[in-house]
């Protein structure tokens, strides 16, 4: 094809892609395999936008699975990966089918494409990350890393990466480490420590080590505080001096591998020769943070924060009042996450009368952590919020401007409607800076409590009337929801990035009665983007109602949403989960099985899982096996080793392998039964893939 013809072709394609209405699929499909990469790229974009059309998906799957044309495969892959969020469930179902049809060597491409299915793909990717084929598993891990960057279920993805660290293939271990580093994950020290020995893994492992958590159960793992803070360097005995030496030599910055690995030998020595800090040492370090000159105090504070040493927080708070912390310390403070919130709030409460500025500093830090770390359960977050509000109200009354500014910001973010008047009342006590901060805080409150913006006598902060901007957002969503086009309504809901206001929640929950499956599932997905813990109970109630919809897709989405909202920790929601497990739709059953991860284990659930072993769908049996860990799970996996479908037997071997791994909490008796079961199956198994899975499980157990 000449350049001129090709340009014409591209222009045509562009025209096809930009045209409203149905796409000419017969013209588009050949262009996915065009010899010119620019044409392929543009075709992939057009195909991605039209991915809801079955014939487009069929062409993309064919392109993805064919063995010869790399350009076509990449175009198909790109189209799947860039699929719009609304198409995610469809992309998931398509690729799930494609996975079963794929040649063994093509499964990795399907794994990579599953990124386009978003959160729906999480479980299948987690499963593929345990695939016997290292390339498929590696592709799945990379796909999971992409999903993590999109903010999808960090907990689940972190688990998959951690599990992959136990594999023997370096490529997988490296992929997993890279993924964990990118997520700034907190991994057990016991898992990381052995990896330090291999030069290939040392850099990422060290980087993770500084954010590591200890295994609380057996007490055998070293404390990261010890690892990072109290290195017994030759010739140093005073912990403060040791800490300063470490800080100066940048060994404290195990948090950033680049600096730590410049001196790998020392770092390894740090890791090897540590002991836990006692309270006396902590007290000594605390005194030093408060008494030393700013440069040294900053270094020590940074060291303590890198080490996640909460016992030194009071000293760091008082230092923060005295001098500005350096940028690294501020980042390390933010990285402390929700475990530090309680400690900071205790400090704030204790300091209100004695040192209001220290209280303000601690409250600001706690409020920041509460805003950006969403890993804590919603109920816990609601309790913290209430404490933040209470302390902020007290701080506002102290009359100190700096404290008032912090209190204003915290109340704007977490306060109740009546706090707007409280904030406005203090305008005369302070200067213009307070007026600025107060105006922003009241706007934030008005966004959550529309009555403030709609009041017949609108609230004023100083001379400033409240803007109507906060109400516009709600009105925009409302306007879109009145559309007669369900795609517009669904898209409007999908565009709601976070539900932080009661008004938004109400609009979204009403959409659960829309009648259109796309709108209702979009609403269920949106509910999982809840940002205000106070709204959780209402959202869960609505999701539970939706779980009885007559449409399987809505029921399945409701179960997923309920799980993400933490509903299954509620006793009244357990029946919903049990009902979903016996749903006639496989889609709902699988969603329920995946939701079991967030459920409280119970004999009823275990009984339901036992019954699932007889389910006609192999996919259901596989999900059921890994759903709830424990002795009964091993029993189920042992039974499933005899299942007629090879993929079930393979999965059973994986489950048993996981239960035999050294991080498993399985009893010795069941551990032995798992080993015996796998060994005896080894003799009778004919399928090569299952045999590999069994051997892998037994090797992993040592």
């Amino acid at each position, binding site marked *: 094809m000449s350049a001129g013809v090709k340009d014409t072709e591209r222009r045509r394609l562009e025209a096809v892609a930009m045209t409203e209405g149905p796409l000419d699929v017969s013209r588009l499909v050949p262009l996915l395999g065009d010899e010119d990469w620019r044409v392929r790229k543009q075709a992939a974009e057009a195909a991605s936008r039209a991915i809801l059309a079955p014939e487009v998906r069929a062409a993309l799957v064919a392109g993805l699975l064919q063995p010869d044309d790399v350009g076509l495969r990449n175009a198909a892959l790109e189209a799947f990966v860039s699929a719009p969020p609304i198409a995610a469930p469809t992309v998931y179902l398509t690729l799930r089918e494609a996975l079963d049809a794929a040649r063994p060597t093509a499964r990795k491409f399907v794994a990579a494409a599953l990124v386009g299915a978003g959160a729906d793909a999480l479980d299948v990717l987690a499963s593929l990350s345990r695939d016997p084929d290292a390339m498929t598993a590696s592709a799945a891990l990379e796909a999971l890393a992409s999903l993590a960057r999109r903010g999808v279920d960090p907990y689940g993805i972190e688990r998959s990466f951690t599990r992959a660290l136990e594999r023997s293939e370096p490529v997988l271990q490296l992929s997993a480490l890279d993924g964990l580093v990118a997520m700034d994950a907190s991994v057990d020290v016991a898992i990381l420590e052995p990896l330090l020995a291999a030069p290939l893994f040392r850099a990422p492992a060290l980087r993770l080590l500084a954010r590591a958590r200890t295994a609380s159960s057996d007490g055998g793992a070293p404390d990261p505080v010890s690892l990072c803070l109290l290195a017994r360097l030759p010739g140093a005995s005073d912990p403060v001096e040791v800490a300063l030496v470490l800080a100066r030599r940048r060994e404290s910055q195990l948090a950033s591998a680049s600096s730590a690995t410049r001196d790998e030998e020392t770092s390894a020595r740090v890791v090897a020769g540590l002991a836990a800090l006692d309270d006396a040492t902590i007290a000594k370090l605390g005194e030093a943070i408060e008494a030393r000159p700013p440069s040294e105090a900053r270094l020590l504070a940074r060291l303590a924060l890198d080490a996640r040493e909460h016992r030194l927080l009071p000293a760091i708070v008082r230092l923060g009042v005295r001098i500005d912390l350096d940028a690294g310390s501020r980042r390390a403070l933010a990285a402390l996450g929700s475990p530090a919130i309680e400690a900071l709030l205790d400090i704030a409460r204790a300091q209100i009368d004695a040192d209001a500025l220290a209280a303000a500093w601690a409250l600001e830090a706690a409020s920041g952590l509460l805003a950006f770390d969403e890993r804590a359960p919603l109920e816990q977050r609601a309790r913290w919020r209430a404490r933040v509000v209470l302390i902020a109200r007290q701080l506002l009354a102290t009359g100190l401007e700096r404290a008032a500014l912090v209190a204003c910001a915290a109340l704007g973010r977490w306060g109740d409607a009546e706090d707007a008047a409280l904030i406005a009342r203090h305008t005369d006590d302070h200067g213009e800076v307070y007026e600025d901060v107060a105006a922003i805080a009241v706007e934030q409150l008005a966004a959550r409590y529309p009555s403030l913006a709609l009041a017949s006598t609108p609230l004023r902060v100083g001379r400033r009337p409240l803007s109507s901007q906060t109400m516009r957002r709600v009105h925009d969503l409302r306007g879109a929801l*009145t559309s007669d086009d369900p795609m517009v309504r669904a898209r409007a809901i999908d565009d709601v990035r976070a539900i932080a206001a009661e008004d938004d929640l109400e609009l979204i929950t009403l959409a*659960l009665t829309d*009648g259109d499956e796309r709108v209702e599932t979009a609403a269920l997905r949106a509910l999982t983007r809840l940002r205000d813990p106070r709204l959780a109970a209402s959202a869960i109630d609505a999701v539970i*109602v939706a779980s009885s919809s007559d449409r399987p897709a809505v029921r399945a989405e409701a179960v997923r949403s309920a799980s993400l909202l933490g509903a299954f920790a509620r006793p009244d929601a357990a029946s919903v989960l049990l009902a979903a497990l016996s749903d006639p739709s496989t889609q709902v059953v699988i969603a329920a099985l995946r939701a079991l991860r967030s459920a409280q284990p119970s004999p009823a659930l275990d009984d339901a899982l036992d019954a699932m072993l007889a389910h006609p769908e192999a996919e259901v049996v596989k999900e059921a096996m890994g759903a709830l860990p424990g002795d009964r799970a091993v029993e189920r996996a042992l039974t499933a080793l005899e299942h007629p479908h090879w993929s079930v037997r393979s999965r059973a071997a994986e489950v048993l392998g996981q239960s035999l791994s050294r991080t498993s909490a399985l009893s010795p008796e069941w551990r032995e039964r798992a080993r015996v079961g796998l060994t005896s199956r080894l003799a009778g198994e004919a399928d090569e893939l299952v045999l590999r899975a069994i051997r892998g499980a037994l090797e992993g157990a040592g």
Partner: protein
Amino acid sequence: MRRDEFRLLRDLVNRRSGMHFDEASLFVFERRLRERLKHVGVSDFSAYYQYLCFHPRSAEEMDEAIDALVTNETYFFREDYQLRAFSGEILPRLHEQAKSANRRRIVVWSAGCSTGEEVYSLAILLLESRLFDGWDVRVFGNDISKRVLQIARRGIYPPHSFRAMPATYDAYFQPDSSVIRGGRRVDDRVRSLCQFGNFNLLERGRSAIIGRVDAIFCRNVLIYFDPASRKSVIDTFYERLLPGGYLMLGHSESLLNVSTAFELAHLSSDMVYRRPTSALSLPPVAPREKT
């Protein structure tokens, strides 16, 4: 349609929707469902019954069947005497009630809203009253039929939908012949107050999603329900209404033998039901003197 086929279909519709049809409805069933037979490709009503029971698309088809059986005819400002009472007497009371509860929000539910004319009529009355300027105002309409909700959401109506509407409300509509010749489109000011939902009034859980409301209009809907279903729907209304909230039924409908939880409120041109409250400090509604 044989009588046994009619009974099977009638009972199935009753079980799924709560709607009740007596023996005399056989011909209505036959006439209105015959089209559906052709549509789903079955030859007789027995096969259609099997389809409704067991086909993977049975839920969707049941929606269609119910839609065919129900009369969805409505128009703007229907039964205007009641709307006048709502506007002139009930809205001021609801305004006072909300203010005394420190609420700046009013929600009205049109239960069984059909093609949406009632929802928009109520929204217009709320705007016209000027009592709720700057308040959070919502009118929610629900119906069991997706088809009628599609029309409601479109918001474009033919000329005969306006046959009872006073000309003073013309400003709330714009000419729009895009889908209907001589059609008129509901203004965005009105539409933005309205939202629609698809569910059966017997689905208590889904009704709960609406939250608490100040007034419910359920006119010419209860006639389709059997006594048990009617009782259930009225109980739902009671639960959804805020204390002091009003329930408006069609002119031929009453709560006689259905529920004693509501109290009767006598207005100048109508009688409506109200959820009682002891906490309200409003003057009681004076009973009409007997003549």
